[in-house]
């Protein structure tokens, strides 16, 4: 029996197929870990750097990045349990920028967990953020995982007092390669809070820490660095499964230090070079990381994106959603005790654009 296709049903089906085809395949149907109620998915958007020009004008390119990430999060099926915003919503901490960011983020159909970045903080020292957006240090439990959010972008008092105006302070912290910058730190107060927060958490509870800056040492001249990171690591050391997720570096970057897995998030705005490509100063870029492709400036969304994170048995699988490149997937390898790229980890499988120099 031949099924007749009417013109109307053809058009209907055709349009449906077209709509599906226009979506990135990964977003149409993602169903993982459905047999274990403890497994879940969340999304991570970071480093949008929305930049106010004047009046109601903002840098178009950066707006576009955040809007695209928000739209794609809303298309995810099954829906992620929540979305994390990893910091640097604003470029110069301006009220206009943060409000503009909140407006774009308000289109998300998910609860949002916020992490503060230095670009959100150094104009008013986090006042607007804490009044209108979120606390900067907190923890929560979700399906058996203990999440901790830290404000890792604090710095020394002497540096804070160095500047004549809040604008000057913000501008100096905003410049990544500033020789007059100052290293980030978590600070004694938060470390004390962290110890207390983790005191009643059993050692086999998976811990996910979310900070803006990496909680290990990569490259001090660009603040890919947190000065007291080792003190934080020491607090996390007794736990069996610990993952630290961070923004700030605008690149694919991952590492394993003892029991702690570190993974960076992409920026929705622009990519940053790996410190290996600045040859005047030594760096500690993790050897484990397979670099992202060198960015093609002619495609303004290249080397930017966001992440879908799947938590399975307390370990993170990180799906980097890269808008102009093939997606990258990091999975924790139990045998190696480290995260690995599912496609490119073997040096023989790497491709020329992954070479940075």
């Amino acid at each position, binding site marked *: 029996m031949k099924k007749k296709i009417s013109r109307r049903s053809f058009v209907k089906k055709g349009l449906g197929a077209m709509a599906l085809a226009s979506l990135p395949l990964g977003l149409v149907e993602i169903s993982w870990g459905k047999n274990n109620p403890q497994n879940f998915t969340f999304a991570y958007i970071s480093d949008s750097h929305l930049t106010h020009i004047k009046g109601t004008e903002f840098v*178009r390119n950066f707006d576009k990045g955040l809007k695209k990430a928000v739209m794609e999060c809303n298309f995810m099926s099954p829906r992620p349990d929540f979305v994390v915003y990893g910091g640097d919503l604003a470029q110069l901490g301006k009220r206009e920028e943060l409000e503009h960011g909140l407006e774009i983020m308000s289109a998300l159909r998910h609860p949002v967990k916020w992490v503060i970045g230095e670009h959100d903080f150094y104009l008013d020292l986090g006042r607007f953020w804490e009044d209108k957006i979120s606390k900067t240090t907190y923890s929560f439990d979700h399906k058996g995982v203990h999440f901790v959010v830290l404000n890792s972008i604090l710095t020394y008092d002497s540096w804070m007092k160095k500047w004549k105006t809040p604008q000057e302070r913000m501008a100096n912290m905003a410049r990544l390669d500033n020789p007059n910058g100052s290293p980030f730190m978590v600070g004694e107060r938060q470390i004390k809070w962290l110890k207390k927060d983790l005191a009643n958490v059993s050692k086999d509870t998976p811990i996910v820490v979310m900070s803006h800056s990496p909680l290990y040492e990569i490259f001090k001249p660009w603040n890919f660095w947190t000065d007291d990171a080792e003190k934080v690591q020491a607090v996390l050391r007794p736990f069996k499964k610990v993952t630290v997720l961070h923004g700030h570096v605008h690149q694919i970057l991952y590492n394993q230090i003892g029991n702690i897995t570190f993974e960076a998030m992409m920026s929705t705005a622009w990519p940053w070079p790996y410190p290996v*490509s600045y040859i*005047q100063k030594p760096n500690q870029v993790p050897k484990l990381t397979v670099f992202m492709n060198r960015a093609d*400036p002619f495609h303004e969304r290249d080397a930017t994106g966001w992440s879908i994170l799947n938590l399975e048995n307390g370990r993170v699988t990180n799906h980097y959603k890269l808008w102009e490149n093939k997606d990258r997937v990091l999975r924790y390898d139990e045998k190696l005790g480290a995260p690995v790229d599912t496609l490119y980890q073997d040096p023989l499988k790497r491709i020329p654009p992954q070479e940075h*120099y």
Partner: protein
Amino acid sequence: MKKEVFLTIILLIAVALPWSNGRADEFTKKDLKKWHKEFMTVVKEGERLFHSALGKNKVSCDMCHPNASNTHPETYPKFQKQIGKVVALRDMINWCIQNPLEGEPLKLDDPKMIALEAYITYERRGKPLSPGRH
């Protein structure tokens, strides 16, 4: 005879004059210091420009290229696939000013262009030349 002697003396003086003021390759440590200072003044100006809004949208070069990294000045001139021909570093500087920075291109001999090039190449000092590399 007198005339010949006179002409010979004139000629000798004319030939000797440039030497009397120092040969082309005679320079002192003081000269070197002065020239380096001149150069570094232009590098500093380049650094300032590299970190300021050269276009209309407040975006600056350093936002994507801290310490001018990932600009690869040693690889130019090279075939830029997106432009479809061999271009110089300054062509790419102008491309960035026009696109991500949404500004007007600089004249190729604009002192600002020279300063930007000075800063970019200075941050890459010591790297062997590899023209054409991708």
